[in-house]
């Protein structure tokens, strides 16, 4: 499939890219609006727009009149509800809590779409005229030009609104200081609702209009948030002009890459053009810009100041580990096979949550690339054990080393880029890693899974699917291996929290300046935290590979990273106990298995509950379930003591 590369083709593809660019621009301007009014980086913007586009598509296919109007109303309601139910209760919360809440909204919206319309692409009915127009001798689909024009008009209107109206000036005053606008006698609540509605309607409108030019498929649409965040971040979350220009730039580059992929000289892998180049672009643009501009970006973005979830020192870690180990061994021995599998999944999840505890809980760096780091371990292990045929324990060790290196790669920008910017950058990095590496048929496994050879010690195979000492699979021996790994990781993190290094990590999280002033090398502490976090994620990746006897790109995607991050925060991102609670809550883990078995709720609903649980926990218990439970137990003890004394 070789096409020529003349000026006409380039012009045609540039025009085609305008449609995608307009969609990104519409969502990105919405992101700027909500950030300026509420300080929320709305990672759910893509998922919300997708929901609106799906509703519209269903209304059209069933022949309901005024579908577009209904779609806009749905978008407005979704915007208002998000603010009223999620972000208003979080008005005084830190940026981490808001980001996690927004991730929860993303997971919820995504789950609703999959439940209602399935995960496969859906044909989106056209709204704009589909005829082509002739431009300089090239026929170009009219709708792309219209989309571009509409988004520019919408942005100009927004700009005028925020520049010249009382509403806009009040919104900007709120962004500077909520107190200021209260003094002006304005209701910040009403202003923020209005801004959320504007943003949501904007995103929904362009979602409906542009859906026919792209693909209406849940994951694709949800992950649009990566280029969208790139555009908004380059515009400093304040400039509509720069944001829209970057969005169109990304759209055009995206389209031109598609053109180049058709050229004979474009790198090929197993007969198809090199995948993931499109996803690599926003990541590289972000990485280079953020690194060069460093701290020149607005402070509200860089300062993930407290409140961060608390991170108390573990008490009685040794006895607790011993009790836990005994209970887990008994469970592995006595539970039926489905429960054993759920327990193994929970232990795996707990290891991954422990890696979030180190990078986010201890040192305050938000990374959305934890699954990419785990995936690096899984894929390197598959290659070393499969293609190179090296014996155990070399494949898992090589895998874990690869995870540490991948994590260190993300720590390079973390030396200059902080807080929410790092979250956005790692999200883009996670998408790029999944598509460019894991999804590559040669380096990764393409669309199929890559096999992972089972653990073999002294000729004995310890695989989840083999029987162990005559018991039926899933293997209890494999369960013991996972348990041993989990205990090792728990010990490492508990020791870290009690060590001087751990104290320095929390010092960095608390105040980088004050830490530096006591002689702490802030950069080195962050690097070490990423290395240890990478090690833990690597162990999780290796165990995943063994559990599923293979690795596949879809297991190590950015949405899974977000889900795990949410679950880790839900359990409690500051403590080992929090990570263990997080493990119970992971998809296919013990809690969801209990819900599915006892209440007969189909497993398809798991993602929905997970998303809702993340949102509710962030609002109700910002330190995480584990710390809240410990607090409740302590205050109960104190009350009992007081009663006993009186």
């Amino acid at each position: 499939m070789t096409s020529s590369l003349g000026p006409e083709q380039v012009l045609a593809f540039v025009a085609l890219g305008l449609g995608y660019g307009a969609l990104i621009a519409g969502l990105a301007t919405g992101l700027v609006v909500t950030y300026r009014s509420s300080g929320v980086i709305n990672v759910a913007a893509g998922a919300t727009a997708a929901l609106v586009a799906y509703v519209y598509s269903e209304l059209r296919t069933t022949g309901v009149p005024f579908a577009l109007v209904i779609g806009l109303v749905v978008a407005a309601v979704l915007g208002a509800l998000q603010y009223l139910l999620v972000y208003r209760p979080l008005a005084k919360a830190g940026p981490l809590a808001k980001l996690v809440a927004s991730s929860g909204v993303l997971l919820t919206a995504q789950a609703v779409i999959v439940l209602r319309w399935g995960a496969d692409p859906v044909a989106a009915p056209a709204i704009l005229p589909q005829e082509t127009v002739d431009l300089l001798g090239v026929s170009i689909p009219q709708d792309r030009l219209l989309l571009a024009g509409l988004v520019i008009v919408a942005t100009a209107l927004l700009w005028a609104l925020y520049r010249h109206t009382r509403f806009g000036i009040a919104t900007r005053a709120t962004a500077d200081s909520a107190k200021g606008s209260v003094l002006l006698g304005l209701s910040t609540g009403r202003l923020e609702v209005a801004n959320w509605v504007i943003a949501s309607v904007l995103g929904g409108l362009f979602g409906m209009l542009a859906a026919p030019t792209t693909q209406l498929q849940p994951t694709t649409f949800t992950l649009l948030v990566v280029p969208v965040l790139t555009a908004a971040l380059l515009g400093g979350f304040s400039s509509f002009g720069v944001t829209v220009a970057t969005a169109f730039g990304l759209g055009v580059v995206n389209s031109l890459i598609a053109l180049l992929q058709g050229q004979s000289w474009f790198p090929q892998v197993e007969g198809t053009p090199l995948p993931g180049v499109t996803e690599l672009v926003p990541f590289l643009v972000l990485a280079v810009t953020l690194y060069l501009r460093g701290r020149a970006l607005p402070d509200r973005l860089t300062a993930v100041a407290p409140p961060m979830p608390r991170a108390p020192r573990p008490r009685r870690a040794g006895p607790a580990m011993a009790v836990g180990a005994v209970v887990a061994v008994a469970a592995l021995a006595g539970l039926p096979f489905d429960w054993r599998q759920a327990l193994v999944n929970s232990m795996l999840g707990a290891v991954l949550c422990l890696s979030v505890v180190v990078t986010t809980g201890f040192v305050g760096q938000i990374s959305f690339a934890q699954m990419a780091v785990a995936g690096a371990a899984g894929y390197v292990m598959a290659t070393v054990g499969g293609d190179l045929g090296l014996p155990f324990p070399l494949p898992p060790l090589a895998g874990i080393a690869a995870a540490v290196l991948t994590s260190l790669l993300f720590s390079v920008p973390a030396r200059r880029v902080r807080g929410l910017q790092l979250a956005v950058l790692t999200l883009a990095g996670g998408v790029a890693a999944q598509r460019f590496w894991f999804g590559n048929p040669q380096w990764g496994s393409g669309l199929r899974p890559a096999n992972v050879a089972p653990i073999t010690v002294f000729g004995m195979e310890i695989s989840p699917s083999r029987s162990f000492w005559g018991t039926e699979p899933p293997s209890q021996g494999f369960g013991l291996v996972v348990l041993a790994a989990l205990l090792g990781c728990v010990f490492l993190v508990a020791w870290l929290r009690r060590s001087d290094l751990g104290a320095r990590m929390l010092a960095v999280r608390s105040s980088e300046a004050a830490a530096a002033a006591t002689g702490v090398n802030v950069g080195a502490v962050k690097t070490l935290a990423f290395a240890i976090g990478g090690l833990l994620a690597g162990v999780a990746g290796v165990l995943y590979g063994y559990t599923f006897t293979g690795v596949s790109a879809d297991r190590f995607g950015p949405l899974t990273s977000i889900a795990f991050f949410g679950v880790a925060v839900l359990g409690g991102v500051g403590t080992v106990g929090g990570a263990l609670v997080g493990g119970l809550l992971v998809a296919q883990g013990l809690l969801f298995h209990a819900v599915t078995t006892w209440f007969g709720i189909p497993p398809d609903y798991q993602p929905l509950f997970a998303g809702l649980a993340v949102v509710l926990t962030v609002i109700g218990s910002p330190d995480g379930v584990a710390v809240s439970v410990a607090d409740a137990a302590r205050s109960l003890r104190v009350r009992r003591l007081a009663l006993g004394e009186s």
Partner: protein
Amino acid sequence: MTVPLLRAEALSLYYGGVCALRRIDVEIMPGELVGVIGPNGAGKSTLLDAITGFAPLTDGSLTFEGRDLRRHGPTQRARMGVARTWQTLQLFEDLTVAENVRTAVGRHSVSPLVRLGIDRLAERMPGELSHGQRVLVGVARALAGSPKLLLMDEPAAGLDGHERALLGEILRDVVASGTSVVLVDHDMPLVLGICDRVCVLDFGEVITDGPPHAVRHDPAVIAAYLGADEGEDSESPDGSGIGKEAVR
């Protein structure tokens, strides 16, 4: 003649077009307790930030034990022996008092908590302490790395009379052990009472530098404070409080 521990020559620092420090010359001798006073906005905190590496100097030279400080970042300066406390304390709220002190690199043989008489607070969280205790934890953390020079940013703010007296004793004790101290504070009786030398800043410039009794009666000092009191200087909204203290 003794060699100065810290020597600052012609330090200048501009934020955009605003001048925060203008050609400041300061020398700190080993074992000396130097007070720095001046109205709000005079550049006292900026001077501390410049010495510890948190504010970028526009011009001037800054040496510590003969080594060029400007070549080093805040972490390296701390490790060379330049410690500081913060006006906002900046305690690590997630760490116990003992852990706060343990973060300091290059530890002292005698625990600074014992030295300041707060070792019974070791396992408490900073959030549970009184303001006076928190100030002492900040001092203990700064002393934990056995610094040669300790810079203190308004430690007496918010302390009662008894606590101020205790702070004064502690600072004299620190100086007696060989550490030089620079004390930035608004508490005139404290500064004039315990310091060997007092340096007065106004609008980013040193207007007087000398022993406390000379500074107390210097017409330029009184003018600077009264000037701030008249409200001509919009940068010092609560400069009046200092003026009152100065003439009290």
